[in-house]
């Protein structure tokens, strides 16, 4: 492989990897606090993409209740991205209030919460389909108004061409990663969040309203999930209501690789898997989707606590 190609693949890998990372953060935040995997996260990812799509003023297709509907206004892409993600975050909040909190209050087995989140995923995906059908939607090229489709970082002789979309995605995800990391590590609320993640009972003994922080966690989780959904939708297309399910599964591989509930781990895991997928030789491209799961399986068998996770001592 030539150096420029390699560099290009690396940049592509880093770009998609950073999306994996912010998406996986949504999983890992909830896991670190509740010890459960929220399988509805993939559906929230999809929702975020659809919300943003609608908010940019784009038109829906011929199927579903909202056939051919269109908002009377169109927000600029960046604004639509954040509002859409905010709406996805609110869906996360709704799920926590309606289901997860009552389940916690009853002291339910985490397995039940897991199944419940699977039910929510099914309901959300089909709600999308009910309203806007199962068509493929792509963001109109006008969202990146004024930007050239690609940038050449090399010389005309040795081109290193990167799609602008990749750059936009990479920059937005990195900004979100930085802000989120700052929030968790440097603010009072972030400190409380870490405390709840480590020991929620003790946190409540310190005067922390754990339920409120859990709600906040669900909002953040939905928000970053929604951002990731839009960014992937922008990069490829929104491939229909099931858009997020496959991505959601890959996100699982990412968080296991980094260590369940480990925030830096999720970032590292996302980037590793993003790059690994992009460095695959073209003969094996058909197996691309298996890469993440092969990594997941092997990591679980060799080092179940993940790259950055710590082993837990079982209490007798």
């Amino acid at each position, binding site marked *: 492989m030539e150096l420029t190609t390699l560099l290009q693949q690396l940049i592509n890998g880093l770009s998609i990897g950073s999306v994996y990372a912010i998406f996986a953060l949504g999983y890992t935040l909830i896991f670190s606090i509740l010890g459960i995997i929220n399988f509805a996260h993939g559906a929230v990812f999809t929702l975020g993409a659809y919300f943003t799509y609608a908010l940019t003023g784009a038109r829906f297709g011929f199927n579903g209740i909202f056939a051919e509907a269109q908002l009377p206004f169109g927000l600029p892409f960046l604004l639509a991205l954040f509002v859409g993600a905010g709406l996805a975050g609110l869906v996360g909040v709704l799920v926590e209030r309606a289901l997860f909190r009552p389940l916690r209050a009853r002291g339910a087995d985490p*397995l039940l919460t897991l*199944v419940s989140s699977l039910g929510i995923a099914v309901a959300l995906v089909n709600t999308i389909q009910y309203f806007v059908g199962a068509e493929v939607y792509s963001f109109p090229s006008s969202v990146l108004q004024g930007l050239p489709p690609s940038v050449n970082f090399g010389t005309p002789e040795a081109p290193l061409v990167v799609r602008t979309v990749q750059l936009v995605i990479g920059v937005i995800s990195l900004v979100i990663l930085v802000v989120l990391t700052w929030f968790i590590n440097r603010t009072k609320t972030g400190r409380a969040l870490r405390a709840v993640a480590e020991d929620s009972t003790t946190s409540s003994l310190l005067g922390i309203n754990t339920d409120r922080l859990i709600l906040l966690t669900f909002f953040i989780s939905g928000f970053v999930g929604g951002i990731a959904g839009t960014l992937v939708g922008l990069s490829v297309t929104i491939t229909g209501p099931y858009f997020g399910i496959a991505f959601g599964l890959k996100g699982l591989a990412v968080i296991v690789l980094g260590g369940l509930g480990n925030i830096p781990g999720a970032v590292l895991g996302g980037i590793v898997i993003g790059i690994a997928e992009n460095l695959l030789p073209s003969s094996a491209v058909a197996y691309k989707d298996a890469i993440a799961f092969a990594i997941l399986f092997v990591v679980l068998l060799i080092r179940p606590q993940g790259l950055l996770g710590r082993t837990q001592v*079982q209490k007798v």
Partner: protein
Amino acid sequence: MDQFIATYGFLMINMLLQAVLALSLYLPLMAGQLSLAAPGFFAIGGYVAAVLSTQKFLAVPGTSYGEPLNAFTLWLAGIFPFTPPGAAYPIGLVLVEMGIGGLLCGILAVVIGLPALRLRGIYLALATIAFVEILRVLALNLPITGGAIGIFGIPQPFPQDATKFSYAIITVPFLALAAWFVYRLERSRVGRAFIALREDELAATAMGIDPTYHKVLAFVMGAVLAGMCGALSAHVLNTWNARQGTFDASILILAYVIIGGSRVWLGPIVGGLFLTALPEVLRQVAGIDGLPVWLSSFLSDGRLIIYGLLIAFGVLFFPQGVVTPERLERKAKSPSPRAAEEAVT
């Protein structure tokens, strides 16, 4: 009645098959292992049947299907005299395929289970999800599985004009046997060891129960059942491809067990039957005259929304599942009011 069977024959067969799948997930869960590998073994079983029936065991002489049977398959087919006349394929061979599919899955389960079952709780669930997804990608790309198209034209062991309901002759006994097996297992020494491991693995090992052996055993039994079920399903569906046995199926099967009841053999069966029928039931409800248009359109087009919400909230209202050992026992002990009345008079 004929009309009913023609319309719902396939649904009813599918309900029975899904109930078996639910049992196959329940078996490892009995030993405390949350494995979502059932759809993977289901898919393998299906491919075994599809490959064997379309490429290895050839069709019955005198039909339009392919070449005559070879001596071995003829002999196999001959052991089961109840192959319906006019069928393109002997039922006996379907059973043989189920056996082979189950056996292969069992062997694979030992290989995978030995390392994977050291994982606990959600980690095992994730590893098994990975297993299912890897299998799916392989199925999409390998020549033997027919790639993305899959394998079609899987021969039917019934005359061409028969409905899918004919499969009841295999499916009903299959479910009955599987249910009986699990029912008996729960009352046996090994089943008790499973349940002890689920209740408290540490205490169980301190009482002399080998955790690895029993976990792998439960995992293998589930795999065999899922593989057999897959082999049968391939015939029922007539075609087999990588869409069979995916992660979605894992979710669904887990929902059968959790909603139906995860602590007693009847739970998964009830869950599998009920949840498989539910979308169709909703569609029927939507068709009732006099409903407002928006409601009937929601009931039919949005039935999967209702389905998802039922699962999501079902666990809130039935945290132990619909069928629990306690409810079963109460039923068994207190005779129905009717019976009590009769006893008095």
